[in-house]
């Protein structure tokens, strides 16, 4: 047994009784072979675009559990009924819980350190990583580089202070 959700639009020029009749007919089709879990009616609602020159339609949603034959039967009926403007059947998913669990575990493992990384990256000292690599290669030069770096950092501050303004100007 699979869970399906079928939505259909009934033409707005029908009277209340006629609409009621169509809905109950369709509900019976479902009930015969499956279990109707929920029936949702939105009533007359404006369409985002005209369908068969109608600007609004009556929205109905069925949520049910049944064999695959039922949605086929429903759709066959929909095609026969002229008052149905549109219909859509989807299968409700149940297996995706797997993915979520895996992901949650991963997130927990990463936890805080990840967020810290993000913070440092946001401050934009991407150059530091390269500098770290340099240090490994040439330890002596690195010391000199560090001194320079210290000087450079001051420059950076200046740059960073001035650049945002430039950026704002560009955006304007």
């Amino acid at each position: 047994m699979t869970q399906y959700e079928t939505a259909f639009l009934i033409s707005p020029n029908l009277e209340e009784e006629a609409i009621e009749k169509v809905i109950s007919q369709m509900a019976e089709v479902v009930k015969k072979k499956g279990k109707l879990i929920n029936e949702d009616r939105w009533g007359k609602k404006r369409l985002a675009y005209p369908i068969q020159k109608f600007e609004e339609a009556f929205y109905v949603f069925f949520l049910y559990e049944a064999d695959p034959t039922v949605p086929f039967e429903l759709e066959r009926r929909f095609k026969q009924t002229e008052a149905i403007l549109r219909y859509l059947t989807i299968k409700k998913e149940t297996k995706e819980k797997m993915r979520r669990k895996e992901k949650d575990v991963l997130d927990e493992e990463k936890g805080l350190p990840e967020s810290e990384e993000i913070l440092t990256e946001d401050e934009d000292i991407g150059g530091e990583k390269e500098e770290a690599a340099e240090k490994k290669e040439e330890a002596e030069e690195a010391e000199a580089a560090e001194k320079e770096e210290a000087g450079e950092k001051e420059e950076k501050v200046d740059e960073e202070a001035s650049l945002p303004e430039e950026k704002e100007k560009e955006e304007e």
Partner: protein
Amino acid sequence: MAREQRSERSFSRRYFPPKRKVCRFCQRNVRDIDYKNVDILKRYILERGKISPRRVSGTCSYHQRRLSTAIKRARILALLPFLED
């Protein structure tokens, strides 16, 4: 040598990294994106009715996939426009 590298770097620093966007669905731990929830879907379509790209909305790939199917379903039921002018 070191000088050259440095100048290159400072040049590249002019391009500021964009603000890190976080997927709003992940933040709220949303599992399903329902096609009936038009209010939420509307935030992810552009003026002309197009689905907003990931680089704009910052949605993660998993939720972007969900989102696009939800929007397409909503379009079939005329809850959302295929195109708007």
